[in-house]
């Protein structure tokens, strides 16, 4: 798995989590710039799935493939699910859902790296 892509993804998800947190503090909802940010993360996660699958197919090392692919696939569901769940709530709590979703994506990418590196 590509470490640079993973690091950018982790950084970007944390950045977006902070962005959402600012919105929670300002009592603002999901708007277009924030939505594009989340969409960019989602595109990067799709790229990660493709790249990760190819890397897994070509590696000779012992990697827990089922968990790895499981994380790659599940990570794709988090942001769309969170956006759908959050837009129905017209208060800051809807935006707070997005904070959690971005943090979860960051944690999941870290876990993918750990699984890829072997161990845990």
């Amino acid at each position, binding site marked *: 798995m590509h470490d640079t892509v993973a690091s950018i993804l982790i950084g970007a998800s944390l950045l977006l989590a902070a962005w959402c947190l600012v919105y929670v503090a300002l009592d603002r909802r999901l708007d277009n710039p924030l939505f594009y940010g989340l969409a960019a993360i989602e595109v990067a996660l799709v790229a990660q799935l493709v790249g990760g699958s190819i890397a897994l197919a070509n590696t000779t090392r012992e990697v827990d493939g*089922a*968990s790895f692919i*499981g994380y790659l696939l*599940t990570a794709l*569901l*988090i942001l769309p*699910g*969170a956006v759908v*769940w*959050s837009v*129905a*709530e017209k*208060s800051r*709590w*809807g935006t*707070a*859902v997005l904070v*959690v*979703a971005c943090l*979860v994506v960051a944690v999941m990418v870290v876990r993918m790296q750990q699984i890829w590196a072997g161990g845990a």
Partner: protein
Amino acid sequence: MPDARRGPGRLLVAVYGVFAISATARSAVQIVSRFGDAPVAYLLSALAALVYVVATVALARDALRLALVACGIELVGVLVVGTWSLAAPEAFPDATVWSVYGQGYGFVPLVLPVVGLWWIRRVSTRQRSVRSGPGARWRPRPP
């Protein structure tokens, strides 16, 4: 009518959803790939996953009684398994969500049922006061 899905409940359901997904996935991998290694731990993992799924669905559908039961089992589960995993670590060669009171998940599994029970209580108290309070059958006359 107050609703478990509104306001902070929106966030609570989202966090429960994350735990439902992660506990289910973890448990599925454990049972499929190496059930014989630690059957007790893996069955408890599966139980935890089921409880999170039920709690998530119940809260998301505003089914307060079911949510109350699920969060109650969850609180008991995290306390019992947490204590058990400290007292007899050999029974848990592999971690569950509830091992050491959910240490592997930043102790969120310990906090979550408490917040969940508090939220259910708050919503149901408000629902009762809306049902029986002024405005239900009786309206104050305008001055």
